[in-house]
């Protein structure tokens, strides 16, 4: 049974080899029959990869410990949800999920790309196929999940307890859909370079696919951040950890790509730049895969370290990044230039956005890779921490955020900055008031906090101003304005919503960082402590037996003014006997947008060690991410994108793998 999964994987590799060669040669020779091979082969490759994945999942569900991979990462007592999510809670399985999603996107291009020029479609699928082949080889040679054990052990070694959480069901599939989703715009870019021309169909296709990937990556990062927040028990949501940066770099580059693709689609300018960005974005995705999977970093994500894997991924990385950039260097000059525009214009604003975002990507890149480089060259170990990123990334982000509301208000080709500024007067006034009120409330103790709140309000009101201006609010009768408002293209709403989400995230960050409070103390039962006006009583500790762990569950009560219990909070330390490991399950009470966060340590002579945090507006950090995703999705539904490019259908199906993978 299990061998079928292995064979299916080998067959998928063989199909991938056909997919990367035959259509490509066909496209060169203009041979219709050879190009027609691309579609069916891509679909079959996806089917076999899915079969292979399904069989591995089945082995996990049945706790088939004759498979080394299942034995190492599963346990018969583990709840079914974690048996299934455990499939990608390890190196081999997560690589299989990676190629499954890659072939899935290939299949989507094959299905929805029927109206593409045949040579372009064939070339795109061939490029996708070549990426697939590299990773199939990687899995089969260095990380085969179907390796057998003989004799089969009776019991498994269990999954890392930190990963036994609902977060594992959501975070990796979303993240991979984002990472790997950028392979489509990469394949389109490489295909355009091979063909030596960028036509209208190409320009129309890149933006929706980038948008799909971006929406998923946004979700994956936000989910990962929230998971780390509640699972690690440190009360932090972003650590500038190299693994986080690995997913953040493609996001930054992808955001830049999203914006430059607008210019290309609407004004057919910035074509070459967009193409380069598409290549860089997927290259950063590959780099992220390398950093996380090769074992050069130690983290909860680096499941196993095996030098041969690192070298293999490094080779894949050099082949694709080097190859595509070399192709770019050779062919980019043959591509046609686009339209002209004034520096102050929508295009100009989007170029500025791109400059900021790519520079920010570069600083994150340096901060992430510099320590590795120094270690490789001199053997010195340095660790670049949050102070580095605060000093480089934030100064680059603040001006960008200040400029965001201007962009959508500028006209294409030649904009009027003064008119845009006038329209933003209200947003500016609101931001100023918000900043002053904040400064007043905190007695001017933190200028940064006041500025941060003002910035967030500026972003939020500024993005809504765009909608008001486009509807003509104040210039025409309210009924007319409403009709216009309803009739605005969905992409306009999408933009406003995404920028609004950004503002919400900024507000959440400022709230949690500048206004958060914490305290550490030892508590005896019935003792009451106070944090930022919240009175919390520690009641008792109850032992609880879980399916594959024992729980030491501490009960806390959030007290109201009269001493009544407003909210019960459970915070616990779990012990997983199979791996002899403890995990922390933080107790969180959400009050409005804010959270009270409690994690517990050991019981000492003077009582239980308790750490409490009060985090104002913290949920907005991830809520803003969800709003950004909604904005991206809305933009995908735009009517304009549906004409000629069936992005609507492709978006619907893009939601599938999350279901499938689960």
């Amino acid at each position, binding site marked *: 049974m299990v061998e079928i999964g292995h064979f299916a994987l080998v067959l998928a590799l063989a199909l991938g080899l056909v997919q990367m060669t035959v259509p490509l040669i066909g496209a060169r020779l203009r041979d219709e029959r050879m190009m027609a091979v691309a579609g069916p082969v891509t679909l079959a490759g996806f089917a076999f990869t899915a079969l292979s994945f399904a069989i591995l999942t089945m082995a996990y569900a049945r706790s088939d410990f004759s498979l080394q991979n299942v034995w190492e990462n599963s346990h018969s007592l583990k709840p079914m949800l974690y048996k299934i999510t455990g499939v990608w809670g390890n190196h081999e399985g997560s690589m299989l999920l990676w190629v499954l999603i890659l072939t899935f996107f290939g299949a989507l291009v094959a299905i929805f790309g029927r109206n593409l020029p045949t040579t372009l479609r064939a070339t795109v699928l061939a490029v996708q196929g070549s990426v697939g082949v590299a990773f199939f080889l990687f899995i089969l040679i260095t990380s085969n999940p179907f390796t057998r054990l003989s004799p089969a052990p009776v019991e498994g070694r269990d999954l890392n307890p930190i990963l036994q959480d609902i977060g594992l069901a959501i975070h990796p599939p979303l993240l991979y859909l984002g990472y790997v989703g950028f392979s489509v715009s990469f394949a389109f870019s490489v295909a355009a370079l091979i063909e030596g021309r960028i036509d209208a169909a190409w320009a129309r296709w890149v933006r929706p696919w980038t948008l799909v990937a971006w929406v998923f990556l946004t979700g994956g990062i936000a989910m990962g951040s929230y998971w780390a927040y509640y699972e690690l028990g440190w009360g932090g949501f972003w650590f500038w950890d190299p693994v986080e940066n690995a997913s953040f770099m493609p996001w930054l580059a992808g955001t830049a790509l999203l914006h430059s693709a607008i210019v290309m689609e609407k004004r057919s300018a910035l074509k070459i730049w967009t193409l380069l960005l598409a290549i860089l974005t997927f290259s950063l995705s590959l780099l992220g895969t390398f950093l996380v999977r090769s074992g050069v970093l130690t983290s909860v994500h680096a499941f196993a370290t095996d030098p041969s894997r690192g070298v293999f991924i490094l080779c894949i990385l050099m082949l694709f990044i080097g190859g595509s950039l070399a192709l770019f260097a050779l062919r980019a000059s043959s591509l046609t230039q686009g339209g*002209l525009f004034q520096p102050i214009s929508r295009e100009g604003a989007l170029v500025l956005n791109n400059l900021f975002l790519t520079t920010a990507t570069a600083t994150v890149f340096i901060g992430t890779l510099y320590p590795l480089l120094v270690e490789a060259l001199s053997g010195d170990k340095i660790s670049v921490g949050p102070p580095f990123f605060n000093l480089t990334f934030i100064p680059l982000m603040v001006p960008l955020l200040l400029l965001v509301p201007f962009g959508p208000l500028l006209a294409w080709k030649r904009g009027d900055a003064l008119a845009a500024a006038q329209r933003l007067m209200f947003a500016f006034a609101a931001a100023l008031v918000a900043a002053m009120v904040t400064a007043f409330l905190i007695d001017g103790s933190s200028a940064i906090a006041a500025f941060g709140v003002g910035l967030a309000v500026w972003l939020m009101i500024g993005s809504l101003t765009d909608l008001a201006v486009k509807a003509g609010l104040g210039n025409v009768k309210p009924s007319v304005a409403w009709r216009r408002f309803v009739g605005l293209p969905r992409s306009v709403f999408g933009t406003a919503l995404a920028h609004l989400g950004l503002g919400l995230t900024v507000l959440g960050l400022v709230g949690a960082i500048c206004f958060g409070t914490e305290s550490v103390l030892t508590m005896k039962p019935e003792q009451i402590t106070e944090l930022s006006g919240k009175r919390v009583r520690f009641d008792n500790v109850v032992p609880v037996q879980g399916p594959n762990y024992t729980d030491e569950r501490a009960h806390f009560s959030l007290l109201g003014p009269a001493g009544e219990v407003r909210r019960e909070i459970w915070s616990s330390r779990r012990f997983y006997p199979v791996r*002899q490991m403890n995990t922390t399950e933080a107790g969180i009470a959400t009050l409005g947008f804010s959270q009270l966060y409690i994690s517990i340590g050991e019981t000492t002579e003077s009582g239980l060690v308790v750490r409490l945090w009060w985090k104002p507006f913290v949920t907005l950090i991830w809520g803003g991410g969800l709003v950004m995703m909604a904005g991206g999705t809305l933009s995908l539904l735009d009517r304009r994108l549906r004409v000629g490019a069936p992005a609507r259908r492709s978006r619907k199906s893009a939601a599938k793998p999350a279901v499938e993978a689960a």
Partner: protein
Amino acid sequence: MTRKQKRIAVIFGGLAFLGAATALTFVALGQKASYFYMPGDLVSADVQPGQRIRLGGIVEKGSIARGQDATVTFAVTDTAETVNVSYKGILPDLFREEQGVITEGSFGPDGGFVADSVLAKHDENYMPREVADSLKEKGLWQHNE
């Protein structure tokens, strides 16, 4: 604006950004990159009180002592040199004697190391890699399978 002017503007704009980013990066790396030290490195290194560093090593056997109100003191050693560390907070789940640990913080005026974060990896046979590599270099590495 002609194509040529536009190109010049883009190049200068790009260079300005590149320059700003480089400047920021160098300033940040020069000042704020927090460096990693083992207790033995501190003998020769010039680490000022208040300077933020990462200190790694092994938690010395029998050195963990709990003070009042969630304060813990322990000694970090590379077997040659030892540094006393105090920390107020919740220790990571895998913090224990004779296990690898990385603490982050700075030396107080009295010469003791005050940590504001303590890291130990989430795996049983684990030692932070920075620590493991340094110990291997010094020939002190033992695999505790």
